[in-house]
């Protein structure tokens, strides 16, 4: 009987945090995007396993700059997380600094990554490894740039006073996407930069 009785306690109205449709939607988006990166890495390992070439053909990749860049991207995630936490606690103004830091660190990642690209001796159409390297890192870079666009919108909306500790679902949704983009990099980094050392080792 109890299951059909009408509700007597108030229900949240509208996009209330993780009860909103948008939260569920972004989780589904992340599932399908994670599959996409899964297939990209499948492609990488499949072709690497089938080739008779030395892998990577240009020798082992340097780890210093990409390693630092990985830390920068993770720091960006942490900064965003801190900003979101401030909003939940009611500190809308101080959250803005967290978001600005996240955007700055994310932009630094993009700049360093573009520099990495420029320093490569191969290109997307020079050989198979070049095709894989630039396609996979290119897919990720596109996601970072889209993520930065989302963060910029979130920053603008926060500065316009759209959000407070009760309603900030856009921050939650955009934030989890940004964290996803950063976590995916760990997989891309492990595959492209770390796994060759394992194979050679």
């Amino acid at each position, binding site marked *: 009987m109890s299951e059909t009785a*009408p509700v007597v306690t108030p229900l949240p*109205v509208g996009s209330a945090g993780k009860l*909103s449709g948008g939260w569920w939607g972004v989780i*589904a988006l992340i599932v*399908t995007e994670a599959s996409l990166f899964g*297939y990209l890495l499948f492609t990488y390992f499949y072709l690497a396993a089938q080739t008779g070439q030395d892998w990577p053909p240009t020798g082992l990749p340097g780890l210093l700059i990409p390693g630092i860049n990985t830390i920068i991207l993770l720091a960006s995630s942490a900064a965003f997380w801190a900003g979101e936490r401030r909003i939940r606690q009611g500190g809308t103004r101080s959250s803005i600094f967290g978001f600005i830091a996240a955007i700055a660190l994310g932009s630094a990642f993009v700049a360093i990554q573009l520099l990495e690209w420029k320093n490569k001796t191969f290109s*997307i159409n020079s050989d198979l490894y070049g095709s894989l390297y630039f396609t996979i890192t290119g897919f990720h870079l596109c996601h970072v740039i889209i993520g930065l666009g989302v963060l910029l919108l979130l920053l603008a909306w926060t500065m316009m006073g759209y959000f407070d500790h009760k*309603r900030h679902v856009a921050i939650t949704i955009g934030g989890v996407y940004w964290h996803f983009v950063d976590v995916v990099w760990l997989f891309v980094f492990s595959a492209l930069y770390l796994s060759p050392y394992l194979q050679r080792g």
Partner: protein
Amino acid sequence: MAAIGATRHRIDPPLERIPEVGRIPAGSPIEARLEKIWETAPGWRGSLSTVDHKTIGVRYLVTAFLFLVIGGIEALFLRIQLVGPEMGFLTPEQYNQLFTMHGVTMIFLYALPVLSGFSNYLWPLLLGSRDMAFPRLNALSYWIFLFAGLFMYISFPLGQAPNAGWFNYVPFSGPVYNTGPNIDVFALGMVLLGISTTVGSVNFVVTLFRMRAPGMTINRVPILVWGTLTASVANLFAIPAVSLAFFLLWLDRQIGAHFFDVANNGQPLLWQHLFWIFGHPWVYVVVLPAMGIVSDALPTFCRRPLVGYTAVALATMATMLLGFGVWVHHMFATGLPTVALSIFGAASMVISIPSAVAVFAWIATIWLGKPVFKTPFLFFAGFVALFIIGGMSGVMTAAVPLDWQLNETYFIVAHLHYVLLGINVFPVVGAIYYWFPKFTGRMMSEKLGKWSFWTMFIGFNAGFFPMHIAGLLGMPRRIYTYPSRMGWDEVNLITTVGSFIFAVGVLIFLVNVVLSVKRGARAGANPWDAPTLEWAVSSPPPAYNFATIPTIASRHPLWEGRIEGEEEHSRTKLEEGYLLMRGRETLGTSPIDAKPVVILKMPEDSYTPFLVGLFVSLLFVGLLLHSWTFTALMTALSCAALSVWMWPRRNLGQRTTRHDPASAGRGGEGP
């Protein structure tokens, strides 16, 4: 919460409230108000901006049927060419383009979109909701599907259509052997279509977990919902594989990448893996919702509930789960290791178990029921017969040695047509007969209906059964002609005659649709005396679907009290329910138990889905034409339109409720 002042209550929608319970009698002023909240503007404005799932569902159905007719006409051209040996009706190149476009059209532009049409129209009605979880995403999904379909036909009038078969194997589809725009159109079109399928799938998944009427626990949802849910979850995992494959191929062709380029260590087999990792789940994507249609509609004509609801629901999911582990059975002849072939062969045979569970459930339902031989029943019963034949030939080809013999012969063509027409087209046509009164408020002609069934059923079997024999006689698929003396003349003649009889059957059905829209007998809310929730609302349903959100107490709410052994006290409430009419509102419930957890604010009609769909599609045109400035411009416009779409809205409860002089007086009603 309690701190929100009374004045603010007037300005903004409150952050929480107890939903009012009541009745909204038909024809009352309060019903008129509800109608006004949900109605779509008349004229072109409404056409481009509507987010009503019923309108979108009908658009999906009509568009998919147009593609079915186009794909069917292409097939008839192929059959004329093959009617006898050494015919010159088509050139080899024309034949290649026609069989490719026939496959592409049927498999990608008809088979799933038609099922999405049913699901879009029916889901909120079946689930007791006022719309899908993401109405604007729903509109976007349709627009991109339409544009992707047009895109894939863009080069057809120039005689440059895709020509490498629907699974488009490299190296033939690669830059060396296929230099025209044919394959680029296909590759980019498939990536575009993938966007539509993905956002549509997200919408179905979230709708199932969020939008069911209170009391519709997870074990009470109709099987159609299980089927579409399973297909949608599978799409989330499978679509990226094919989108990636086509994108990599495009990079190989246009940028000079080397993924499939043998001369530079690329691997053609990579294409086959990526394509079939998607392709085999896709087979289940285009049949499981159709099987769900039968599981829900067949019981109506057997006058009893489906036998083995739980078993059928679990079998649906088990089929898909196994379906992700069988893709290599499309690659038995590629020289993979024997161990891999054995595992994938065995897995493919195991799929016959959940399929058999469903078949025996349908047979038992007919057996234990009192069948009423109306047209939809004939189509559903015919479907069971064809499913068994198609399933048997499927098990045969799962055996590796037999597959080596049958691979690339007409036996495979026969098998896949029994599966796709048998499990998709027959249930779909039956479902149109079944739900036509709900869509239009009119019945279809029973006399023409029976004619259409028997013509289609006889024509189909006459046309496609002999293909098994042609295959066993060694006739390869995809040949534009064949010499006499091979012993293939008779079977091909019979196949062509059968396919034309089948086409006449489809024509009778289409004539029936056109006549019945105008002149069919008026249908009431529930002309078939069916058990499920969509028949509780008028035909056609009002824009808001349910005047009040119902409370559900069983799997067959409209048959309660008639079925033996039911508990007396649990009763579905259809008249009295949650009012939810401060603007577009519906109830969000918990994923398993369907307990009310949130009052969802639904968006009003909007142009942004149309604009995003248009700009994204034009972006792909830019890529096709190598016009990078145009591509960049369209990317920017897409992003701008998306930003407008995502802009947090006060009347949707996405923004803070503090200072807001602007929206005073508007309440939560929306513009």
